[in-house]
């Protein structure tokens, strides 16, 4: 568990130290350094879990291939499912911090924020990483709730960082909607604990996911059903499922762009992770009741509605960051649908989609940040001719959007193809809805993209200092995942699939 301690401690200490560093340049570098150490620790943790292999863990409620342990009296558990998200979180956190350094310098230079707010920004950035990593690795459902709420609290000041009326409004919406949503999730957690108390004698273990999972068959189905509705609405608000999505486009478009990248790429994943973990419990509890697939159906319904509605809303957007946040809602909807569909193939597809979506979307947001600095606006109408002004940014945006829209050589195509295949096998009628939704979203993205990349640049538009390495790395990875998924990664995702569905795909 040493690796895990390092994974969690690094961002926490980083946040504390960054709270003290006021000058902009060293703070940016320090933030980068903390992220490098985090990624190193996350890789170490991944390696440790990989070494456990399929050996059965000896802890309570033994689950194959997982490591459990306690840090400061709290139970943590790492298995194939969450360790891949931990590595992804640390990786995107690192590349975003590479991008954030020059980006925030530009923001400081243009006088939009002062050094004090920059200090808040850096400190909260690492605190946000910390809360997400805790939410992913903890075994205790209550601690998971505290961490997800903590993630809201850490980011809400970042959304209002620019203090424009729009930014304050977006932050207030974000705070209130997510606060309410997450309060409902706490009610669901209390109900789960209530159900657990009827069957588990040790009150302290009643919120431990592994204990609950082992005893899932004995949990009272009626209570768990009600609890899941609350949990789904609560965590679903953070996933951005329609109709609880209202905060998402505002928060993503008004905050600083590095924040949009991590919110879209990481926070939504963490919330979806929580939903999937809870679905596993409810499925276990409802297996002998009259509606064994209730949780799956609910996820499919919410997922499909989000997917379709967000696709339509893409057409109406005028702000480039709002547009891509709707695209995030669309993809989260697709993943939710995939997890709801269940079965090894759909789950594998959804896990892969989580991975490629995070990589692609954060790359897109990084590019969009540069594009907005070039044009001096986020309005789609006024961003023109990127490819002539700064070819690197233009090409990145073009390739990124092609990837997110699901063009063949990229990883997103791969995962969407898997999801479609799974749909055809189990629920063929939904294939039609998915295909038309994909087409609608594709059209929505490209009608806006074309003039932004190829249009005539306005007079005097000049390139900005941009570090495109993170974008290149992300897009290369997505391309690689589309061409050939490396064996170890496929095995990794397969183990996670086995964990979630009980049967492996490969």
């Amino acid at each position, binding site marked *: 568990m040493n690796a895990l301690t390092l994974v969690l401690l690094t961002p926490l200490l980083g946040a504390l130290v960054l709270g003290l560093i006021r000058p902009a340049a060293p703070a940016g570098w320090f933030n980068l350094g903390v992220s490098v150490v985090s990624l190193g620790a996350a890789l170490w943790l991944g390696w440790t879990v990989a070494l456990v292999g399929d050996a059965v863990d000896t802890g309570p409620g033994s689950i194959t291939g997982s490591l459990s342990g306690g840090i400061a009296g709290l139970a943590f558990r790492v298995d194939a499912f969450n360790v891949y998200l931990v590595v992804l979180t640390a990786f995107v956190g690192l590349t975003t911090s590479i991008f954030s350094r020059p980006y925030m310098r530009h923001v400081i230079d*243009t006088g939009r924020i002062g050094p004090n707010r920059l200090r808040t920004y850096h400190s909260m950035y690492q605190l946000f990483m910390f809360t997400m990593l805790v939410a992913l690795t903890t075994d205790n459902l209550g601690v998971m709730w505290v961490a997800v709420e903590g993630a809201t609290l850490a980011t809400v000041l970042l959304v209002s960082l620019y203090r424009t*009326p729009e930014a304050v409004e977006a932050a*207030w919406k974000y705070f*209130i909607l997510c606060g*309410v949503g997450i*309060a409902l999730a706490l009610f669901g957690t209390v109900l789960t604990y209530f159900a657990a108390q009827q069957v588990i004698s040790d009150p302290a273990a009643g919120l431990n996911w592994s204990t609950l999972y082992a005893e899932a068959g004995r949990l009272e189905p009626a*209570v768990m059903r009600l609890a899941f509705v609350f949990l789904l609405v609560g965590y679903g608000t953070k996933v951005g499922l329609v109709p609880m999505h209202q905060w998402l486009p505002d928060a993503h478009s008004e905050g600083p762009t590095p924040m949009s990248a991590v919110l879209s790429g990481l926070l939504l994943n963490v919330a979806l992770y929580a939903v999937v973990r809870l679905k596993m419990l409810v499925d276990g509890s409802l297996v002998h009741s009259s509606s064994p697939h209730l949780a799956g159906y609910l996820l499919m319904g919410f997922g499909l509605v989000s997917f379709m509605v967000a696709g339509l809303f893409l057409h*109406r957007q005028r702000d480039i960051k709002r547009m891509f946040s709707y695209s995030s809602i669309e993809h989260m909807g697709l993943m939710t649908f995939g997890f709801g569909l269940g079965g090894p193939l759909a789950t594998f597809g959804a896990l892969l989609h989580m991975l490629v979506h995070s990589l692609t979307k954060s790359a897109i947001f990084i590019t969009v940040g540069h594009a907005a*600095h070039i044009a001096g606006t986020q309005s789609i109408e006024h961003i023109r001719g990127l490819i002539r002004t700064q070819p690197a940014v233009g090409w990145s945006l073009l390739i990124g959007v092609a990837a997110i829209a699901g063009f063949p050589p990229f990883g997103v195509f791969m995962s969407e193809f898997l999801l479609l295949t799974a749909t055809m096998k189990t629920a063929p009628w939904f294939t039609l809805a998915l295909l038309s939704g994909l087409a609608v979203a594709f059209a929505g993205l490209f009608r806006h993209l074309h003039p932004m990349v190829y249009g005539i640049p306005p007079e005097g538009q000049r390139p900005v200092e941009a570090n495109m390495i993170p974008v290149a790395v992300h897009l290369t990875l997505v391309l690689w995942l589309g061409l050939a998924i490396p064996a170890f990664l496929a095995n990794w995702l397969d183990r996670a699939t086995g964990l979630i569905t009980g049967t492996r795909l490969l």
Partner: protein
Amino acid sequence: MNMTTLPLLQQLVLVLAAIVLFLSFVLLAQTRLISAIHAFAWQGALVAAVTSVVAATGQVPHLYFSAALTLALKAILIPWMLHRLVRRLQLERHTESLQSPTLVTMAAVALVIFSYWLVLPMIQAELTFTRNIVAVSLAVVLIGLLMMVFRTQAVAQVLGFMSMENGLFLAAVSATGGMPLVVELGVAFDVLVAMVLFGVFFLQIRESIDSLDVDRLNRLSETPGETRTEGQ
């Protein structure tokens, strides 16, 4: 359900919970902010009282600690912070009436009935006490939600949010005998941080729209007419 067969202390808990629910109604309809804050403080004190009674019934010593925590946080610290903010923002005389108070109160009544209906099939008839207490706390949560929807004043919305938290605490304490201590501490910490941030936001909202009426926060919509620029 025959209430009189319950142990005396459980009956006491039910009475206190009923007053908590009643205070939710008071909060919902209260027009003066200061009075609403006082009602909220009383609600917090009652939740703390419920916690200590449950601690006495079940011999759960850690609940005494959580009762003290609730009392300090919900009945003293948060109301005091809100009081100070209201004075600082010069809102002492601020009154705000609901658009249609009768309708909103009726909706709240409907929510109470709905909560009982939801809970009815869930918990076996033997657990009369638990069934009642879960229904009451769910009603408190939902009325808090209703308050956040219908009140347009930022401070009133925060009161709605905090009274939702009171309902959650009530459920956690009386239906399950308290969550594990770390979780309770974590939740309390989150609530406290949220309150501090709410305070920061009151000032930011005031600065940006010169009022705390959040209905006037309406610049962000799906099709904004004007285009906004990023780098001023």
